């Protein structure tokens, strides 16, 4: 038995098989090129296992090409807006996404600024009418341009990064967003820089209104932060593209068109946020732990961490369940030891000798056998032998 012989023996086998199969291939009406392919694939698979040195292998075995080190995806830390913009450069929808970003970002912290508008401005005071009206444009927005959906998709795509950036920015602010809006703007502006000034300008027009009415409308419970992002984000994405529809609705209100759009948007934000809060039940639906965390930690997009923390909390019950299962009485037929034995046999396919036997003898617990024409695979190497004698005790 020798390992050096294996290469030649296998080569011989391959040649024999290929030659013997040529007739079969022709009879099958298959292109003979398949045989060459078969040979190549066969040899390649053998070489990959490095069972031995094969004649078809080039003497110095070329090391497998090292996978190109992937440039780590830029995970922008807090001040990451510029890299993000750069990474988005190739994407045509970048401006849109950033528009939505610009619109959404103020939301979590800046809702207080929106709400005052609802209550204070007489022109917009028509809440009952508006409540029904906004919903229609919203529906209309959904059917709007595909770009809209792309914006949403992209937002979700970039969600994590953005969240990191915005969270850090918003972290500096009091959780309830009672701080002056001027603080938010500077923080948010770097991101939307490239997009046309249109959207940027409009929100700013309303700044003057907000401070006046800013604080009084804090109907929100201590932990408004947890639930808000979802509605506000949806609105944000839709707003970027939906102005036309809103404009039509706005007509009856007698508002000037440009102003009306943004105002309605803000109203929508406020209303939806208020509803979300109402549904939230003042934080009743939040796990206590999460509510505390959201308060202390981050403002908006921490929704994801939140749920993650939640499950960990609930892992306890699950574990208990598993333990319960373990304690359940299992059939003796499922004796794990038996399975282990069986698996061992199957898993040991690597350590195997396949051969013919001439003689197998046993005296008490001593066995002797004479084997021949075998292939043996041990420790990742192949050996072939013409004759083998084995002695072992049981």
């Amino acid at each position, binding site marked *: *038995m*020798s*390992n*050096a*012989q294996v290469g*030649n*023996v*296998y080569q*011989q*086998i391959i040649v*024999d*098989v290929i030659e*013997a*199969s040529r007739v*079969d291939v022709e009879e*099958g009406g298959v292109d003979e090129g*398949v045989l060459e*392919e*078969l040979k190549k*694939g*066969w040899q390649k*698979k*053998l070489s990959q*296992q490095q069972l031995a040195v094969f004649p078809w292998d080039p003497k110095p075995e070329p090391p497998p090409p090292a996978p190109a080190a992937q440039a780590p995806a830029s995970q922008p830390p807090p001040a990451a807006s510029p890299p993000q913009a750069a990474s988005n450069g190739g994407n045509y929808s970048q401006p849109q996404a950033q528009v939505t970003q610009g619109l959404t970002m103020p939301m979590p912290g800046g809702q207080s600024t929106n709400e005052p508008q609802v209550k204070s401005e007489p022109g917009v005071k028509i809440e009952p009418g508006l409540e029904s009206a906004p919903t229609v444009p919203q529906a209309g927005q959904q059917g709007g341009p595909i770009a809209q959906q792309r914006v949403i998709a992209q937002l979700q795509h970039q969600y994590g990064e953005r969240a990191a950036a915005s969270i850090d920015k918003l972290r500096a602010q009091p959780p309830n967003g009672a701080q002056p809006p001027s603080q938010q703007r500077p923080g948010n502006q770097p991101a939307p820089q490239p997009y046309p000034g249109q959207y940027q300008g409009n929100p700013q027009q309303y700044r003057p209104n907000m401070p006046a009415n800013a604080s009084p409308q804090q109907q929100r419970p201590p932990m408004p932060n947890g639930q808000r992002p979802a509605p506000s984000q949806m609105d944000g994405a839709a707003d970027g593209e939906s102005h036309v529809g809103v404009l039509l609705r706005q007509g009856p209100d007698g508002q000037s068109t440009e102003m009306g759009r943004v105002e309605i948007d803000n109203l929508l934000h406020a209303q939806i946020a208020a509803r979300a809060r109402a549904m939230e039940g003042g934080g009743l639906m939040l796990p206590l732990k999460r509510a505390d965390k959201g308060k202390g930690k981050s403002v908006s997009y921490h929704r994801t961490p939140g749920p993650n923390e939640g499950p960990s909390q609930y892992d306890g019950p699950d574990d208990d369940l598993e333990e319960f299962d373990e304690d359940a009485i299992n059939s003796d037929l499922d004796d794990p030891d038996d399975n282990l034995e069986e698996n*061992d*046999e199957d898993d*040991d*396919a690597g*350590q*195997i*000798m*396949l*051969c*013919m*036997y*001439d003689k*197998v003898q046993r005296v008490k617990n001593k*066995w002797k*056998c004479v*084997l021949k*024409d*075998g*292939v*043996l*695979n*041990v*420790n990742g*190497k*192949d*050996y*072939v*032998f*013409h*004759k*083998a004698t*084995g*002695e*072992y*005790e*049981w």
Partner: protein
Amino acid sequence: MATAQNFYELYRRSSVGTALTDTLDDLITDHRIDPQLAMKILANFDRAIAEVLQDKVRSRLTFKGSLHTYRFCDEVWTFQLKNVTFKMENGGQVVSADKVKIVSCTAKPTGNAA
């Protein structure tokens, strides 16, 4: 070894056999060959490896170990050995293994259609 004789499919489990089987599988998956042809090729392999092992290989080997399980069924011996030491007669090379399984078909010409 008459050509009409059936050969053991035993060696298909070897590394060279599984390499062939995998390659054939790939070809079948790509619709390059049909399974019937693959079976014929595998039958050719059965014969080729048996003949080559019989005719070309001259090396000998001895091994010792402790027998963990043995089984004899349908003229096939199956041994599970532990702490095995293989000694090559020629090179004096020694190989040890914790566990080795031996599957061995009878070398007698009768009834060897496995």
